[in-house]
């Protein structure tokens, strides 16, 4: 598994660096907007959209982009939005 991890991260280090940067910014903004429900939800929405775009970009660079892949990233992003809306609107 360690080797597979090294191979995956090594081959696509730019992509994963972008994802990691986006993640750090997401968490920073969420901390910054603490208490502001609307701004926090917008941050989650932006991060979810970013993830879909990242996924498409990553698979394009990998020459493996197809409708199923795009659908998978959209489904996971929508699922996360739904999960977090439960927490936001509880």
């Amino acid at each position: 598994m360690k080797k597979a991890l090294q191979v995956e991260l090594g081959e696509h280090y730019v992509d994963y660096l972008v994802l990691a940067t986006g993640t750090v910014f997401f968490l920073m903004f969420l901390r910054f907007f603490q208490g502001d429900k609307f701004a926090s939800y917008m941050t989650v929405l932006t991060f979810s959209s970013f993830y879909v775009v990242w996924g498409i970009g990553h698979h394009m660079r990998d020459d493996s982009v197809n409708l199923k892949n795009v659908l998978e990233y959209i489904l996971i992003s929508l699922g996360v939005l739904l999960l977090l809306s439960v927490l936001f609107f509880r």
Partner: protein
Amino acid sequence: MNAIKKFFSYLFLPAQHNNYRAKVIHHDVLTAYLVVGFLLVSLNKFVVLPFDNVLGLAKDITVTKLVEYTNEQRVNNGLKPLIYNQKLATAAANKAQNMFANNYWAHFGPNGETPWQFITASGYRYESAGENLAKNFLYSKNVVSAWMNSPTHRENMLRKDFTEVGFAVVDGGLVGEQTTLVVQMFGRPSEAIQVQNKTTTTKKITTKNSVLSEFTTAQMASAPKPMIQLPFTSTQLASGFLIFLLGIFALDFYMASKLKLVRMHGKSLAHFIFLFAIAIATIMLLVNGTIL
């Protein structure tokens, strides 16, 4: 036994019979999760959680700490500390009970209840008064910090006019969720009434409070009952599902690397990183709660 083993392997492990991808993360199943989740959120009013079970998360919110942190903020801003007032605390407790009984999260109730109504009913006569609300927090310090970070709540916290404060920390079910409500009531007693109150017997105040308690109990009894009661809270369900997905994508990445699979699917590692970030966000949201 073999059939069960095969079924679980089909659900959770990549193999030939599930096209080398755990069935629980196939597109159709992911879509099904989304539809079920959407239905649960949409039908929240009808499929609700039991109101009397224990909180899903341990919390550390106490009135003593809330008073201490509130006064710490006032002193740091060059103001006098607030004096804890039992009548304001009673008003706060009755407000919290009313919110649970009528299932609302607002300063003003659905039947026209106002914060001032609870303060007056507790026997407190005021020149000026205010109210801050919070729910779903785990720590007293975070409640006070959230209020201080919001301009309108901060204004209440640091208002020169206010001299007294009362708190209520109450657990219960609100809008389909087990939660801890924090009600903070501020006040400055009316001087004329204060003198009058000194002559009023304690008995009279007690009678007033008991009438209010009866009223609250009656309202709780008439609160609408959900059609279906689930044995867990929506937060527990959402958090549990997130942990499940994290586990599945980690397992998928491990199995795919072990079997040296080359697939044309989305990247499980990327999904894991994304969901891990969301898990951290969830913890941040759970710890921080909501203010009003």
